[in-house]
């Protein structure tokens, strides 16, 4: 699959039609996607209508936009006009169809992109594994015996497999950055609430964000500009970089630490205070908001929920509001402290996940020397960053032939352009980059 930029250039110039791009994309998905268990709905009719409209615009001399003819998929929680928004749950399989596209989908559509599929996720986005009772467990294109990560696992798997150049996911505590790291692609959690969330099924609104997956920094920047409606203005000054120490270096792969240290050997090592407290507060806020969002449905039909999320959601619904408010008060104070602490830096370097993708048959990882469930703990390094609201770009270490691993490039509020610029430098140096899956899907 060509890049986002290459496809848009070819379609805009008339070198190929949007319909040709689409048919090639559909053929690839039909031939190769089934083992990944990543696609929940293939939207052939809609996609052909959109591709036909793009080609008609080209024929009439109208520029369809910067994403002309680019096929993409969305996590199963974005509203798609005419379809129920399921959020990965059978409870909403027969829900009334969405009246309109989610705002993010509308912005991609208006820029010329072509929606091809909805993609698998943990039910209600509650997990880092994409183990879904209704649709199955999404597999990692680099090794189908391993998880793709979650909760936006379907969105990551199709881009990593080269079957789509772009997809959208959501990230509450790491649900874009974790699967991006495990599948070896780029995934952006924007500055909190900076990219449009209208028409996105919520999970925990204090932390929910929408963001893209791509296979290159250039594509990420292009898609971010479309979604945000802004230009990523790149300043000329060298970025001020710091490495995150403490907890971020305690549960990390040696290759991640070596890459961070090689990337910025002279960068100061700074420690974010109270990381464990912040992560625990994030757990409490997420549990309370998620549980209360689904409280009525839990009261009505608890057994219809995915067994993997049901007990967690019920527990969240039973938390006292006073504890939630205490966690929110801690969050407000913590965010102010962290923003002041990192104000002198443009980029903070940290691991994205503590390890490579775990096995589907044994979905556990080692944290502090103990085996713990991957579903809850793969976000150990992403969850504290969500707590701060800072933007974070997951980038893949370039290591072809080896299971993928990612880093987080964390920025100042609304500092995405600095992240893109620094990531582009690392990509040029060959430190990061997406490689093709070594295992044919």
């Amino acid at each position, binding site marked *: 699959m060509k890049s986002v930029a290459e496809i848009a250039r070819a379609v805009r110039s008339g070198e190929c039609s949007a319909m040709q791009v689409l048919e090639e994309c559909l053929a690839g998905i039909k031939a190769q996607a089934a083992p990944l268990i990543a696609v929940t709905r293939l939207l052939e009719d809609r996609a052909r209508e959109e591709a036909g409209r793009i080609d008609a615009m080209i024929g009439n001399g109208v520029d369809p936009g910067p994403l002309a003819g680019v096929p993409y998929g969305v996590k199963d929680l974005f509203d798609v006009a005419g379809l129920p928004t399921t959020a990965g749950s059978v409870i909403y399989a027969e829900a009334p169809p969405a009246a309109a596209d989610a705002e993010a989908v509308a912005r991609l559509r208006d820029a010329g992109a072509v929606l091809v599929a909805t993609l698998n996720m943990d039910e209600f986005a509650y997990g880092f594994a994409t183990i879904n009772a209704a649709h199955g467990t999404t597999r990692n294109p680099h090794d189908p015996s391993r998880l793709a990560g979650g909760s936006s696992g379907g969105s990551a798997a199709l881009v990593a497999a080269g079957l789509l150049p772009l997809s959208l996911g959501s990230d509450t505590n790491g649900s874009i950055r974790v699967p991006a790291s495990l599948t070896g692609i780029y995934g952006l959690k924007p500055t909190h609430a900076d990219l449009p969330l209208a028409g996105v099924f919520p999970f925990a609104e204090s932390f929910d964000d929408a963001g893209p997956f791509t296979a290159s920094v250039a594509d990420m920047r292009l898609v971010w500009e479309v979604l945000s409606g802004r230009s990523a203005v790149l300043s000329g000054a060298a970025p001020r970089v710091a490495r995150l120490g403490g907890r971020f270096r305690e549960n990390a792969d040696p290759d991640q630490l070596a890459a961070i240290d090689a990337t910025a050997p002279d960068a100061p090592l700074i420690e974010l205070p*109270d990381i*464990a*407290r912040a992560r*625990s*507060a994030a*757990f*409490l806020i997420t*549990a309370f908001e998620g549980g209360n969002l689904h*409280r*009525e449905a*839990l*009261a009505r039909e*608890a*057994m219809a929920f995915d067994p993997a999320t*049901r*007990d*967690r959601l*019920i*527990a*969240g*619904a*039973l*938390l*006292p*509001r*006073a*504890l939630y408010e*205490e*966690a929110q*008060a*801690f969050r407000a*104070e913590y965010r102010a402290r962290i923003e002041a602490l990192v104000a002198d830096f443009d980029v903070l370097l940290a691991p994205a996940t503590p390890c490579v993708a775990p096995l589907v048959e044994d979905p556990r990882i080692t944290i502090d020397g103990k085996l713990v469930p991957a579903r809850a703990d793969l976000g150990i390094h992403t969850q504290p960053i969500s707590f701060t609201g800072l933007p974070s770009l997951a980038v893949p270490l370039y290591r072809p032939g080896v299971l993928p691993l990612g880093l987080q490039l964390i920025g100042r509020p609304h500092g995405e352009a600095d992240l893109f610029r620094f990531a582009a430098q690392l990509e040029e140096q060959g430190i990061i980059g997406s490689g093709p899956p070594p295992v044919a899907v």
Partner: protein
Amino acid sequence: MPRAPFFHQLRLAVSRWLAPRGGEAAGIAVPELAQVPQTPEEIDAAAAAAGIVIPEACAPGVAANLALLASHAERMRGGGA
């Protein structure tokens, strides 16, 4: 109860100072920090208040998750959970 770090203690002290006066003088105890329901009785009461009947199959999992959340509450308050 673990000792809460400074900022947390300060916030709690301020909120107590701002609360309506007279309670302590009248012999009314200052409210304790909110706790996660953990005993079967506490869980049943919280479920009833939320309007949820916990299915039998879910009871062990809900209790385990509440225990985990209780450890997070302790850690958030500066405890060593």
